[in-house]
């Protein structure tokens, strides 16, 4: 058996998929690339109002003043077609993307008792993806297609002869000349056509008439051009007007994610990465990819990630559309280790990182990495990957000498008086006074082999009035690089809430 899943008025359905409010209204679709072609497809309400496909927009508006005219969107059609192919893929791996808006599925080998229920399941599945489908099931692809065209919404052809007998001749889409000749002969339906001898028909009208006769008899067999469903889960929407606030985007994103989550579930996948694209009014586009820390198909989690990002997003130009692409991944199976303390909710953590990045800036948050150089303060922050850390904990290095430095970023310019090659007095905006003792100099240099040459001379100094600092001389300029210990500066917050309690022996 073969099944054909047909989306009638496919291009209009794709355009109305995320415009529910327009579905009951008179709507027509035009191709902005070919404006002279007239209306491509129209809704039922538009047809009732007397609008017909092929009319020009002014003609259609003259018939129906309330008509809404939408532009065809190839991106939206791609999303709808992908959803259709994925749905076919849930029935069988042998799918043919026969044309835009319908696919043929080879059901041979499928042990199904109730073909009607199978078709109804497909219709329901596509309805949840906001697509109205008709499913035809028959012993060959052509019969299944004819059945799909007549399905309301599912039609299973058990007896091809009986089904074909009542079909009009034009249902087989014969060449106009051939159709005219047959009509002149008084042949109007397929039963009348198949009552004629096939050989004689071919002798008189040519091989095309022979092929038409075979189709009318339900005897055609053809191999399917199998396509492999591309695991690319995307949705798109083009706005009629420019969008300058986040609310419409969030509204649509939620609906996109609802749809994509269903499609992911059908394919037994979860979201590994999300790519958000906003086409802008200036012709450019804003793009941002989000890697999901713990791949999931949870709409709430995915939406929170996008919501957090859009909350802090400022663009120079208005958005004219929305694209969302999900790269699928296998669901993770994690075995927690006995002595490991993993992130309990990696996705929530990722979301918190997003909020923190919005607060302090992306460049100010992350896991610190020391660069492969001896140059002071050569660090960078990279996004944390806590959930990917190996279980083995690196040994803590407790063989460090001296007090840790608190670095001043940027360093503080200073004037240092040097006597007998040793600093003896320090003057700066932060600390000034006589230097009691100094350790140094600690010299370091690098980059002499290229233009990024650096050289520094460091001193650790103890101030007369208290405080340990690191001074550095770069060229002829002195600066304070940081402090090892600095006397507290009074905060004047009043009496502390906890006072030290003297011990009994004191």
């Amino acid at each position, binding site marked *: 058996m073969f099944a054909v899943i047909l989306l009638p008025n496919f291009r209009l359905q794709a355009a109305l998929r995320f415009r529910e409010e327009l579905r009951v209204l008179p709507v027509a679709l035009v191709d902005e690339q070919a404006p002279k072609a007239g209306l491509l497809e129209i809704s039922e309400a538009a047809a009732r109002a007397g609008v017909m496909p092929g009319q020009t927009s002014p003609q259609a508006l003259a018939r129906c003043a309330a008509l809404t005219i939408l532009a065809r969107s190839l991106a939206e059609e791609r999303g709808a077609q992908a959803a259709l192919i994925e749905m076919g893929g849930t029935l069988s791996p042998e799918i043919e993307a026969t044309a835009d808006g319908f696919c043929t599925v080879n059901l041979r080998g499928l042990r199904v008792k109730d073909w009607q229920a199978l078709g109804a399941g497909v219709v329901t599945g596509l309805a949840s993806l906001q697509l109205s489908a008709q499913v035809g099931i028959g012993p060959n692809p052509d019969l299944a297609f004819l059945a799909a065209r007549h399905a309301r919404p599912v039609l299973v052809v058990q007896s091809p002869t009986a089904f074909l007998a009542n079909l009009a001749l034009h249902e087989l889409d014969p060449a106009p000349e051939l159709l005219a000749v047959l009509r002149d002969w008084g042949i109007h339906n397929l039963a009348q056509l198949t009552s004629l001898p096939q050989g004689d028909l071919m002798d008189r009208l040519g091989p095309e008439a022979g092929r038409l006769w075979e189709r009318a008899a339900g005897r055609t067999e053809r191999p399917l051009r199998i396509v492999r469903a591309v695991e690319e889960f995307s949705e798109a929407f083009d706005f009629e007007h420019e969008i300058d606030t986040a609310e419409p985007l969030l509204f649509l994103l939620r609906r996109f994610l609802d749809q994509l989550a269903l499609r992911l579930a059908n394919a037994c996948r979860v979201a590994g990465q999300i790519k958000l694209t906003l086409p802008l009014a200036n012709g450019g586009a804003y793009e941002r990819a989000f890697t999901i820390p713990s791949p999931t198909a949870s709409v709430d989690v995915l939406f929170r990630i996008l919501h957090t990002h859009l909350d802090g997003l400022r663009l120079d130009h208005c958005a004219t559309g929305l694209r969302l692409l999900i790269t699928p991944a296998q669901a993770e199976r994690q075995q927690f280790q006995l*002595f490991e*303390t993993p*992130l*309990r*909710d*990696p996705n*929530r953590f990722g979301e*918190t990182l997003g909020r*923190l990045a919005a*607060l*302090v800036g992306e460049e*100010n*948050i*992350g*896991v*610190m*990495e*020391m660069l492969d150089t001896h140059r002071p*303060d050569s*660090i960078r*922050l990279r996004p944390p990957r*806590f959930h990917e*850390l190996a279980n083995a*904990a690196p*040994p*803590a*290095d*407790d063989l*460090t*000498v*001296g*007090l*840790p*430095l*608190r*670095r*001043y970023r940027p360093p503080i310019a200073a004037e240092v008086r040097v006597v007998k090659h040793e600093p003896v007095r320090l003057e700066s905006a932060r600390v000034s006074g006589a230097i*009691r003792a100094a*350790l140094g100099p600690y010299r370091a240099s690098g980059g002499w082999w290229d233009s990024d040459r650096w050289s520094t001379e460091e001193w*650790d100094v*103890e101030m007369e009035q*208290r405080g*340990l600092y690191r001074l550095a001389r770069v060229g002829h300029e002195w600066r304070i690089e*940081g*402090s*090892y*210990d600095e*006397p*507290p*500066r*009074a*905060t004047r*917050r009043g009496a*502390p*809430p*906890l006072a*030290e*309690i003297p*011990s*009994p022996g004191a």
Partner: protein
Amino acid sequence: MTLLENTSPLPVYQGEQAEKIVRLRDILAEKFPAMQPKAGGILRTGLAAIDAAEGGLRRAAVTELSTASGLGALFIQAMLGVVCRERCFAALVDGARSFEPVGAEAALARLLVVFCADALQAVKAADLLLRDGNIALIMLDLQAAPPRQLQRIPANTWHRLQRLAEQTTTAVVVLTPEPMVEAAQVRITAGDGWTLAAQRRWQRDLIETARWRVFARRASGRPSPVWEGARESSTA
């Protein structure tokens, strides 16, 4: 080492006042069961003086470390060793962009660093991390922040942080130059003043020989601790 209790200068609620507080807590516990604090636990620090007094850092509580900046940096280094040992994750919210990673390389992969522009922003960042609940240890380092910024932090901020901490199992340490966190459940102070000789000693010796003092609010067995007393632990 000494351990004292019930000698706090903090207000002690007694009689009718104490009963009112208990009744209020019961009403709140009944109306908002989800807000009940979780069982905390302890995160061992490896510092003898602190572990002897409290067993370590209290989880689900705010601890204030009020010391000179040198000891604060030493404490951070010590806690990074704990992070490695416990194989957990920590966050350092740096209110003055002063953290220097040299000497802590082993723990860097487990440490989320948040550089903040000022102390207020640092408190907001700590708030977000605390709400997240994934991090075992949050260190909010305000020791190098200018005094003017510290003065601008509203006092109720600390109470909010403490209430948030109670809903998690996170140990929160606020490093301040002088005591200012009113809602802190534990306060750790230490003797200060280093000389240049410290630059030639092992860090672990420097940490162990610091005169740590621990002051704690004793839990009353009720959902949240009552200001009943304080205890002190110090190493000579």
